[in-house]
């Protein structure tokens, strides 16, 4: 399903306003017909909202309710009111703060290089290239590799004694590095798995947005004598601002939820011997399914939700400031 450039530009523009008017302008529409036109839209959207209410909205709210209770994994249907105890316990637990810090550093380490490289790759792919279809599919291949498979492979590549990475480092006279054991090295390694899986995907998103930039913007910039780099900075990047914001938001949500990579990198819910790469998602899993405190796990989930809201507000403020200053 490929669209021409004009179709893409139109699709990105204002939404079409023509609609079916109900009831239809036929000769004497029957009562059944009018009833159908009036209520069928609701029938069409009902499945989505029923499932979303049952498996999205209700659990989210109920997580908040469960976080105010003592709930054991062994008997999850028994709830005992405990007020804010789960939250105060959370704030006193150094491993919660450790996980919060790790989530932040791994989030920055994985998101920033990933999006910068994706932007660069999209710029290269935007040019007229031999084999561009091949490059696009090849760069997207890691996206088809699951978290579990990718992490198992990277854990081997980063192996301390026989890993490919240390072997290559020793060729140039560095190392060996105990990737899993160190604090920064393990976080770097975990981040690299995220980067490997998602850079190509984000490059395609940027590429799509680049193709929607009108050519005359580049033409007039070129006529003004702007160099290729200046055109990239002054035409491409500003035009991509909404898309960049979109990818930053999506990557941030993904980064706060990071779970599979740190779980399988060392194979344990603690995220390393001294919790050096335990993320909030992993901490939630440990609290609920290894310490058997589902109430505490629910409190972690709500804490993550609140953190996301705060981060979202910060992004919103930044975006507003940026759009005002331009």
């Amino acid at each position, binding site marked *: *399903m490929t669209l021409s450039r004009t179709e893409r530009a139109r699709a990105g523009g204002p939404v079409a306003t023509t609609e079916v008017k109900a009831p239809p302008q036929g000769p004497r529409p029957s009562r059944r017909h009018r009833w159908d036109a009036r209520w069928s839209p*609701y029938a069409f*959207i009902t499945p989505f909202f029923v499932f979303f209410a049952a498996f999205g909205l209700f659990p989210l709210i109920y997580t908040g309710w469960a976080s105010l209770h003592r709930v054991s994994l062994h008997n*999850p249907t028994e709830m005992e009111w405990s007020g804010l105890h789960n939250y105060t316990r959370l704030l006193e637990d150094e491993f919660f703060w450790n996980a919060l810090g790790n989530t932040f550093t791994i989030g920055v380490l994985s998101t920033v290089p990933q999006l910068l490289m994706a932007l660069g790759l999209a710029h290269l792919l935007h040019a007229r290239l031999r084999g561009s279809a091949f490059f696009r599919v090849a760069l997207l291949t890691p996206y*088809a590799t699951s978290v579990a498979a990718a992490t198992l492979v990277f*854990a081997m590549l980063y192996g301390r004694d026989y890993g490919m990475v240390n072997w290559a480092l020793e060729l140039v006279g560095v190392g060996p590095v105990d990737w899993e054991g160190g604090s920064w090295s393990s976080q770097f390694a975990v981040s690299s798995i995220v980067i490997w899986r998602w*850079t190509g995907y984000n490059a395609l998103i940027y*590429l799509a947005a680049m193709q929607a930039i009108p050519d005359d913007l580049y033409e007039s910039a070129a006529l003004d004598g702007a160099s290729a780099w200046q055109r990239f900075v002054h035409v491409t990047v500003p035009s991509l601002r909404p898309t960049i914001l979109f990818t930053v938001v999506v990557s941030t949500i993904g980064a706060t939820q990071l779970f599979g990579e740190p779980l399988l990198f060392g194979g344990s819910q603690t995220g390393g011997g001294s919790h050096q790469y335990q993320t909030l998602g992993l901490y939630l899993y440990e609290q609920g399914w290894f310490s058997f405190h589902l109430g505490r796990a629910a409190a972690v989930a709500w804490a993550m939700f609140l953190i*996301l809201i705060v981060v979202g507000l910060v992004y919103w403020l930044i975006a507003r400031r940026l759009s005002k200053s331009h």
Partner: protein
Amino acid sequence: MTPLKIQRQHLRGGWLSHTVLIVFTLGSLLPLLWTAIAASRDNARLASTPPPFWFGGNLGNNLRIAWTDANMGKALFNTVLVAGSIAAGTVLFATLAGFAFAKLRFRGRNILLVLVIGTMMVPPQLSVVPLFMAMAELEWANQLQAVILPMLVSAFGVFFMRQYLVQALPTELIEAARMDGAHSLRVVWHVVFPAARPAMAVLGMLTFVMAWNEFFWPIIALTQDNPTVQVALTGLGQGYVPDQSVIMAGALLGTLPLLVAFAVFGKQIVGGIMQGAVKG
């Protein structure tokens, strides 16, 4: 120079672009190639330096062990069932809702659409505790419907289909069908589905890939007795089978179906992601 020439010049990729792209392509593909190489060796060879760079003769043996000991056979069957059901459900419900939001006028439409978009921002992982409690109550733990039902609809899918149908489905066509006395279900069957088919195919593929790789909730809801691929791979990673070359064989088995799908439908999947991006 005419403007057109300037533009062509700006757009032509030189040898440097090609080199950088080739480096990144190799970076994307080599870890997968190495997975296959490691899966074709044995544990002793993987525990020695330098690491192997070419295939050995142990692939069949490792695949067989992964298939039986790590339950990969059952895992693959389960995953096809789970991902297929989720893709089918998502496409059906997203097309219906997307059609309503794109082409029908009803009270509360705009606010409901905003609600759909808002739900995209809520990560499903935050809901695992109540879902787990509900599954315990229903005694659904370790059963496949426990991982299918919570994933059966997607806000992204609704939005994707709406954006497609807004421009791909001529309003006159619906009106004409209505004038002929067709009721809504007939309109959906004979007008909406045919017009939506390309987008439905792309959404189905994207959803299938996503569902195949779904991780957090299946880990919690299922056990090694009745795993999906991701659950079985987690068992491998947590020392279920200590042999590294068997672990790589499992990773290969769990990834290969999607890689084949990418080799066949790669262009369509790329197109779908790019289309969703511009519109989303």
